[in-house]
């Protein structure tokens, strides 16, 4: 019997076929668009799907415009409580990750050995056989190590359960982005101060006075879109007058450029300034919170003059700023990532946090709150990130030959770690290395097997934003297009391995696929009276979950922190220390995350390469920022190539004469210097991590990436740095012209 198929029927069948192809199992899964399209969907008409951005760990909600099965534009999800429909430059560039010409198209084995760059395609069945064989032939499961990085929470949960079930150590989560924003140190500080690992939430939007200590919260720190949004409100929002913001840091960052005042201080002296401000407030009984008596003990050992001398911030300035802070109705002090990058990082962070306590801004409007944890016990295992100390321990184990199988996901340690930490040498001693990277990055090049994960626009998942929005939130992730290539979700790989091994591993991961696992996780929130939406049936709830791009409560739900007993004793006063003798290495090296490239993970996206750095307007390159006086004393001008030498390495890059940096500080953006990672990233600029000492703050274990000294050697060479602005005006408005 022949049956005529109408055009509409044909489209329906075609759509069903498309949806079914998304899951590796043969089952029918319908994609849930952000807006339900009208009945008569026409080819060429756009459909929007809600998902979650994975360009950084913030977890912003996105909606993606899809036309004829192709993703064409990413926007912020207007319903999402974290980013309110807004998106940053990196989020906007997500399409170039999906459609990147240098993506791996299938699983590969490096046939000619590591570093040979001879990648032989491997069918997934064989690849999984190989991996399963490597795992089952381990003499002891403790000889397996999993190095993770920017990992969505659902994958973290699956990974930890799987590793636990097979008896392997838990995953190590360490990537440079997290180190530069001081994530693990912030979590540790929160533990000490508020007795919880959840990150503090600073109510910038409603703060009258904001003191930011090395927090580049308008660039890459923590949740930049949410913080930019709050900043806009602080400046010209509905909360009354215009706020006042002071940035304390050795180099004027783009965040400091938006501040009302920039206070340059010696690297590592941020805590001293905070202690001095606190001491002045207590001693002179400033502000309007009544008695400072209970907090006097915090500052009993602090000498304001000593602190002023050590930080090189004059006593008069400190005294004035202490009044500004204490007199405000709502003031907030933020301990940023640059603090964590010093060897006295934790002490500095505590000193800054104590300022909030002093003016009674803990749990108050325009003050400090706590991030909301996962709203459901089913999702409570979330990734907090590990310290560099833990990373060094694993490297030591690898060096000692105690690791036989290394799995790496979402991190690029060969690029991101200080070269002197010796990851490359340690990994060479591991008999088998597997990378899950969708690109051939520096670490994947030294792997035996690459099992490329999907890009985030092709993936399922969820993420508990940390720091959170102003309410409990889960951002959900769903594929907006069919996977372009024969890549496979790492979660599916783990589930397949679980099923293959049976026993404990299968019990720990009882789901037939990633989809079923997520459906079950989501339904734990069904029936909550707090939710912004609810449904009668599980299927209905699941549809709304994907349609909204997650779940959150209808109303704002602030979480007030409780301060621990730490405030009963004097705050620690710890002097910073640096690697390299001051006589031989007279300058402080100040690496900072690039706004577009972050820690280097954005370097393969041409839009981000072409995007000018906001302060120098430079593109496609690495440069060295010097104070005009320093540059002149060395006879260096813009575009002159300088050699920067540390006790651990050296690099050459062109100079940018930068008016906003201390004369004893040399700043270099992180992000370039890739030897692999695709055509847009390779052989461009240098990686300042080659110079950085692999040292930690002993109290937090965090990487002290700002604790290295360097010297400068002019080379006599000159290159033309690609920058947007002309050097004629040197970035200044002038009437004279040139």
């Amino acid at each position: 019997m022949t049956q005529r198929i109408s055009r509409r029927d044909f489209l329906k069948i075609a759509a069903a076929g498309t949806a079914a192809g998304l899951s590796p199992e043969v089952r029918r899964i319908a994609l849930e668009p952000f807006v339900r399209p009208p009945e008569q969907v026409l080819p060429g008409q756009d459909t929007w799907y809600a998902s979650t951005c994975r360009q950084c760990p913030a977890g912003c909600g996105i909606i993606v415009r899809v036309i004829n099965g192709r993703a064409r534009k990413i926007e912020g999800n207007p319903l999402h409580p974290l980013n309110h429909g807004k998106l940053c430059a990196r989020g906007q560039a997500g399409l170039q990750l999906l459609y990147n010409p240098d993506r791996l198209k299938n699983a590969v084995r490096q046939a000619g050995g590591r570093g040979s760059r001879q990648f032989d395609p491997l069918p997934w069945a064989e690849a999984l056989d190989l991996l399963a064989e490597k795992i089952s032939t381990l003499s002891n499961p403790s000889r397996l190590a999993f190095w993770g990085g920017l990992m969505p929470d659902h994958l973290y949960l699956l990974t930890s359960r799987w590793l636990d079930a097979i008896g392997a150590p838990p995953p190590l989560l360490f990537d440079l982005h997290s180190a530069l924003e001081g994530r693990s140190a912030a979590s540790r500080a929160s533990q000490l101060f508020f007795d919880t690992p959840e990150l503090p939430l600073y109510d910038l939007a409603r703060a009258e006075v904001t003191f930011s200590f090395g927090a580049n919260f308008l660039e890459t720190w923590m949740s930049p879109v949410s913080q930019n949004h709050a900043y806009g409100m602080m400046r010209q929002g509905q909360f009354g007058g215009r706020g006042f913001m002071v940035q304390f840091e050795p180099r004027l960052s783009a965040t400091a450029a938006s501040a009302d005042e920039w206070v340059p201080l010696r690297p590592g002296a941020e805590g001293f300034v905070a202690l001095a401000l606190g001491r002045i407030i207590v001693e002179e009984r400033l502000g309007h919170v009544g008695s400072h008596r209970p907090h006097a003990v915090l500052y009993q050992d602090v000498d304001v003059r000593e602190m002023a001398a050590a930080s090189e911030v004059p006593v008069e300035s400190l005294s004035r700023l202490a009044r500004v802070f204490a007199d405000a109705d709502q003031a907030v002090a933020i301990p940023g990532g640059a603090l964590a990058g010093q060897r006295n990082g934790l002490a500095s962070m505590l000193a800054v946090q104590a300022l909030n306590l002093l003016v009674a801004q803990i749990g108050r409007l325009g003050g400090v709150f706590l991030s909301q944890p996962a709203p459901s016990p089913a999702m409570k295992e979330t990734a907090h990130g590990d310290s560099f100390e833990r990373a060094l321990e694993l490297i030591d184990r690898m060096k000692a030959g105690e690791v036989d199988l290394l799995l790496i996901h979402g991190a690029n340690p060969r690029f991101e770690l200080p070269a002197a930490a010796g990851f490359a040498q340690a990994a060479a001693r591991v008999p088998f290395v597997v990378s899950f990277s969708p690109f051939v990055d520096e670490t994947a090049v030294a792997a035996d097997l690459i099992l490329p994960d999907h890009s985030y626009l092709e993936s399922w998942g969820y993420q508990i934003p940390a720091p959170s929005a102003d309410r409990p939130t889960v951002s959900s992730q769903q594929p907006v297009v069919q996977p372009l290539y024969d890549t496979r979700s790492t979660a599916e790989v783990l589930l397949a391995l679980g099923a293959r091994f049976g026993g404990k591993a299968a019990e720990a991961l009882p789901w037939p696929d990633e989809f079923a696992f997520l459906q079950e996780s989501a339904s734990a929130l069904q029936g909550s009276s707090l939710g912004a939406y609810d449904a009668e049936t599980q299927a209905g709830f699941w549809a709304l979950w994907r349609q909204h791009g997650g779940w959150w409560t209808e109303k704002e739900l602030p979480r007030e922190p409780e301060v621990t007993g730490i405030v009963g004793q004097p705050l620690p006063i710890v002097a910073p220390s640096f690697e390299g003798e001051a006589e031989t290495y007279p300058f402080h090296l100040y690496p900072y995350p690039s706004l577009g490239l972050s820690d280097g993970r954005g370097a393969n996206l041409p839009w981000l390469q072409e995007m000018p750095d906001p302060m120098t307007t430079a593109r496609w390159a690495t440069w060295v920022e010097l104070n005009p006086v320093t540059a002149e004393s060395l006879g260096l001008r813009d575009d002159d190539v300088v050699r920067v030498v540390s006790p651990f390495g050296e690099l050459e890059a062109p100079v940018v004469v930068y008016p906003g940096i201390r004369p004893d500080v040399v700043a270099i953006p992180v992000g370039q210097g890739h030897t692999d990672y695709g055509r847009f990233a390779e052989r461009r600029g240098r990686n300042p991590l080659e110079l950085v000492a692999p040292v930690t703050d002993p109290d937090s274990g965090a990487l002290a990436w700002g604790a290295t000294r360097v010297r400068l050697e002019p080379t006599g060479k000159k290159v033309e740095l690609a920058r947007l602005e002309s050097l004629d005006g040197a970035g200044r408005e002038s009437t004279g012209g040139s």
Partner: protein
Amino acid sequence: MAQGAKARAGLRPAPTDEAVRRWAMVVDLDRCTGCQACLVACHAENNIPLAGEKQAAYGRWMHWIIVQRFWEGEYPNVKARFMPLMCQQCGEAPCEPVCPVFATYHNPEGLNAQIYNRCIGTRFCGNACPYKVRTFNWFRPEFPEPLTEQLNPDVTVRSRGIIEKCTFCIQRIRRAELEARAQGRGVADGEVSPACVQTCPPGALVFGDLNDTSSRVSQLAHSRRAFRFLEELGADPAVIYLKGGETDV
């Protein structure tokens, strides 16, 4: 001048609803943080080619919106300020009368439109523009496969030899207008957002009809902080800047 205006008026089609509109953008410099989200969003929406490192080193760029940074003072009392700059969509646009082929023309909604397939690449408009916001395609744009998949089907990919610039995302304006017309209503305030406005994290950019007295744009345009860039040139820009504030403490 009056004669020139009349001659141009002759080119305009008969007045419609759109004729009473004047699309305008407000840039609040007090909110702008220089985060560059607008620039990347614009690249993505408008299929803007890249200059590449070599051309970039010659000082060339293809961005339709840039964020200028100005230094003030010397260390340690130094400040940096940001100022986004895009086509100012002038009412008396210096770029228009110089185009020999009417590729650059004034549309009924007060926009400076660029008709790509009329452009013959004289670059007169680029030279006449006092804001330096017009870019010229010296090369054929390259999108290594499969980066072509990222292209917005609503926007033409420009070929070599023609000038391009910010259009206020005219494709989004047209879409909203068509939709509104189909539903028998006017375009509501806030219904149209160019890509830069939609993504701007601190909410520094606002877009709307300047002739609608109730729109956010026209209300902000009356702010005491409002000014127009190089106002003395008399080009009558449709971009209104709000200057940054100071807080007394």
